[in-house]
């Protein structure tokens, strides 16, 4: 019965059981949290959860039970989260970022076996969401959230969920249009075959009429519904007095359609319905590929995604949870350990140790005393505090950033170069058409209309659109495969034009939460290490965690009299020894010579044995990336909200001639980007947190670095997985190649156009020629663009 191979890894989450090993039900668990989740799952006979994938659980080691779900009882919040309700059923959607494997899907879709109040649940894996239908009479929303939380899936509810919810979705209409266009194209092509093979003259009039009637219907359908995508876009841009590429395309579509209509109705021919439906289908396919973005990612986040939905407010009689948007100046709010302060406020009661890393990027805790102003965006660390609100959430110092100009215009910054190109294309074409018209006016005036319409049909700029959309589509796909997620295709062009790259420090070029740790002054023997690690294991402070993680594979012992003094240090008694870890005053040490603020002292039995030096851990390959970018003549700069403790190290990496800025506020960052742009630079900004949000938005290309792409990143143009930062240079180079591919395929399409024009100027464009030229041109473009994109991807090893 013994399962030997599972001895060291947790049955629930699969992590190594380093610290404690809990035996329960013949299984091994790494922490109590995992055991509890297992017992719930086992109690409800849902152990199949553990057979679908190996160790599917979410680690519960750092999981804390929170009181924040109580806000789900407030009718206002409830109303915004619940999508549908009647007396019997209520439908609700929770976002569960922990969903990661098929076991998750299985367990979450069997929620009804755990609680009878749940009728059914459905998981959307890619969106990491769960749709639950439950009976509100038997189960409240709060209990439901707790239920998910208890099995290891904590619902993520933030302010964004309850304000305007505009979820970015792939347009359903576009897929519908694509389906109908495909239907029209295939049938119209099939119905036209007899026409091609019979050399344009079908003997039987009845058959000919049936073909024509069906072709007419299909062509009209395609022209009205699927092509409306182009009609609408052309109308919109014309209203703004801009000629985009859709305008000449729509002109060509209208001419093709009316001429075909005329030919069919007058009985003089069969028209170009097959070519028309074909080109509409191919153009829509290109547009679909280009628009396909990752569903899970959102590029439009602002502070609302980071802020909690509710906060506890102290009223005269009792404590009450209210939505943060209802906070008014004068309200007394209570902020507990690890909770975010949603509005600027004055500290009224308690020990405030605020972690502003969220806003400034600086990791150290800031101590505040009673009566001091505390800015929004900080996280309280330690016991609960009371604060008096002085500004509403939307007027706070941090959120002010979003009221700035940059965030107001949501327009795309620029039009793609193909729109300009299509203008020249159209001018050349129209001159040609004019010349041909004049020529025929003098020679054979009956052929004027015939030849000029034929020219407009065959030489429409759709080839240009196809080249661009298919190239962008495949480049986006390749970059996505490389964990470089772009918001849309226009970003590709901006990326290719970039000449200046600005880095943020914390979280961008350093690992978030990971610290390089070294013990100075002395060396610790194994017993001492064990003592220090045991004490450190008791605290959740980032420094304690870093010390704890530094010594892997050593067991910690029982700690007695553990005491943590926030902002100072921790102490405890292990195996009869008094251990103290903390600041120099806490431990009673004198400052060493090369002392830095991130040093932590250790004493055993009141004897100081040394100190830990903590420094940021830079991402792997950073040196390579910087030299790579410098070789390609990019201007570099670094702008950080953190202090200049690491200036020397950074100078070594970036070199002397790179400008490094420290202690910068979010607004400074934005202004710096702006000043670079005023010098005519095209700026790429790399950042990770809310403090970079302004700069990311202002820059030509804003890249948000994220260690877990499902996590939250501020509004940006690109989301990049932190592990792949080192390849940034290759990504930019690849984006540049895209433009060349578009040009190449444009030249190919010009050759097709010239062949078609050769027939068209003579007024001899038979439908069969159009029917051969148009699809073969489209297919050549598709093959050329995708082929070359993937070829270059291979060359660049992407």
């Amino acid at each position, binding site marked *: *019965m013994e399962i030997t191979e599972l001895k060291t890894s947790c049955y629930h989450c699969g992590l190594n059981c380093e610290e404690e090993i809990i035996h329960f039900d013949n299984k091994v668990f790494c922490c109590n949290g995992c055991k509890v989740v297992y017992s719930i799952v086992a109690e409800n006979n849902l152990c199949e959860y553990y057979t679908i994938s190996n160790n599917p659980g979410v680690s519960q080691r750092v999981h804390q039970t929170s009181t924040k779900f109580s806000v789900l009882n407030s009718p206002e919040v409830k109303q915004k989260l619940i999508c549908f309700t009647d007396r019997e059923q209520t439908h609700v959607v929770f976002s569960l970022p922990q969903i990661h494997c098929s076991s998750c899907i299985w367990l979450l879709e069997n929620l009804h076996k755990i609680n009878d109040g749940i009728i059914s649940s459905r998981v*959307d894996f890619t969106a990491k969401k769960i749709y639950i239908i439950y009976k509100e009479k038997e189960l409240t929303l709060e209990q439901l959230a707790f239920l998910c939380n208890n099995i290891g899936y904590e619902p993520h509810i933030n302010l964004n969920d309850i304000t305007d919810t505009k979820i970015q979705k792939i347009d359903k209409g576009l*897929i519908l249009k694509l389906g109908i266009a495909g239907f029209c194209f295939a049938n119209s092509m099939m119905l036209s075959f007899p026409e091609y093979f019979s050399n344009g003259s079908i003997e*039987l009039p009845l058959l000919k009429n049936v073909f024509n009637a069906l072709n007419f219907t299909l062509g009209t359908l395609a022209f009205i519904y699927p092509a409306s995508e182009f009609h609408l876009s052309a109308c919109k841009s014309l209203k703004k007095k801009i000629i985009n590429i859709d305008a000449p395309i729509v002109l060509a579509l209208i001419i093709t359609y009316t001429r075909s209509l005329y030919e069919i109705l007058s009985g003089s021919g069969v028209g170009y319905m097959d070519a028309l439906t074909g080109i509409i289908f191919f153009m829509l396919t290109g547009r679909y590929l280009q628009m396909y973005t990752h569903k899970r990612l959102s590029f439009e986040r602002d502070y609302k995604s980071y802020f909690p939905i509710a906060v506890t407010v102290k009223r005269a009689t009792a404590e009450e949870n209210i939505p943060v948007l209802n906070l008014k100046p004068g309200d007394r709010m209570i902020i507990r350990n690890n909770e975010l302060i949603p509005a600027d406020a004055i500290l009224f009661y308690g020990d405030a140790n605020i972690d502003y890393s969220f806003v400034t990027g600086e990791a150290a805790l800031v101590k505040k005393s009673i009566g001091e102003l505390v800015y929004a965006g900080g996280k309280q660390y330690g016991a609960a505090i009371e604060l008096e609100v002085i500004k509403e959430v939307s007027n706070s110092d941090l959120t002010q950033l979003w009221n700035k100009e940059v965030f107001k215009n949501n327009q795309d910054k620029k039009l793609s170069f193909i729109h300009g190109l299509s203008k020249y294309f159209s001018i050349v074409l129209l001159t040609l058409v004019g010349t041909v018209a004049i020529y025929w006016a003098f020679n054979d005036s009956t052929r004027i209309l015939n030849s000029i319409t034929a020219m407009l049909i065959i030489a429409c700029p759709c080839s240009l659109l196809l080249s661009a959309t298919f190239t962008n589509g495949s480049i986006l796909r390749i970059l996505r495969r490389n964990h470089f997620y772009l918001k849309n295709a226009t970003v590709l062009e901006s990326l290719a034009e970039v000449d200046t790259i600005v880095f943020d420090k914390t979280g961008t070029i350093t690992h978030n939460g990971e610290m390089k740790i070294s013990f100075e002054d002395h060396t610790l023997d194994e017993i001492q290490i064990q003592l220090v690690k045991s004490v450190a294991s008791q605290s959740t402070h980032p420094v304690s965690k870093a010390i704890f993680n530094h010594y892997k594979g050593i067991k910690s012992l029982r700690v007695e009299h553990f005491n943590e003094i926030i902002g100072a240090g921790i102490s405890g008694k292990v195996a009869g020894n008094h251990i103290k870890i903390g600041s120099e005053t806490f431990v009673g040490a004198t400052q060493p010579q090369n002392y830095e603020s991130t040093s932590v002292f250790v004493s055993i039995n009141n004897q100081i044995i040394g100190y830990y030096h903590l420094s940021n851990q830079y991402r792997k390959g950073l040196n390579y990336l910087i030299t790579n970018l410098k070789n390609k003549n990019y201007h570099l700069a670094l702008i950080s909200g953190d202090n200049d403790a690491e200036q020397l190290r950074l100078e070594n990496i970036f070199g002397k001639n790179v400008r490094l800025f420290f202690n910068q506020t979010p607004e400074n960052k934005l202004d710096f980007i702006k000043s670079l742009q005023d010098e005519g630079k095209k700026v790429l900004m790399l950042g990770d947190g809310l403090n970079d949000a302004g700069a990311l938005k202002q820059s030509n290309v804003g890249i948000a670095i994220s260690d877990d792409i499902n996590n939250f990143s501020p509004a940006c143009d690109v989301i990049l997985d932190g592990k792949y930062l080192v390849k940034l240079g290759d990504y930019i180079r690849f984006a540049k190649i895209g433009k060349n591919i578009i040009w190449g395929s444009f030249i190919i399409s010009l050759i097709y156009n010239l062949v078609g024009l050769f027939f068209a100027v003579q007024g001899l464009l038979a439908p069969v020629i159009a029917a051969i030229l148009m699809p073969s041109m489209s297919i050549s473009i598709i093959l050329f663009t995708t082929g070359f994109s993937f070829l270059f991807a291979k060359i660049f090893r992407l």
Partner: protein
Amino acid sequence: MSALILLLGVSFIVSVGFLIVCISAIKNGQYEDDYTPSVRILFEDKPMPKQPLQQQSDNSTNEHK
């Protein structure tokens, strides 16, 4: 030749049928989540999956010995 017209009509109706299926699938939201159903279809609905499974695996290991 009238057979051809009949065939043409039939094939057209069939293709219209497929188009309707396609449209209803889009309207139903089948294109919104294209991953989860592929996992969901592999789940089995067993009344008591745990005990019989363990016994089976125990038996099989014994046989191997």
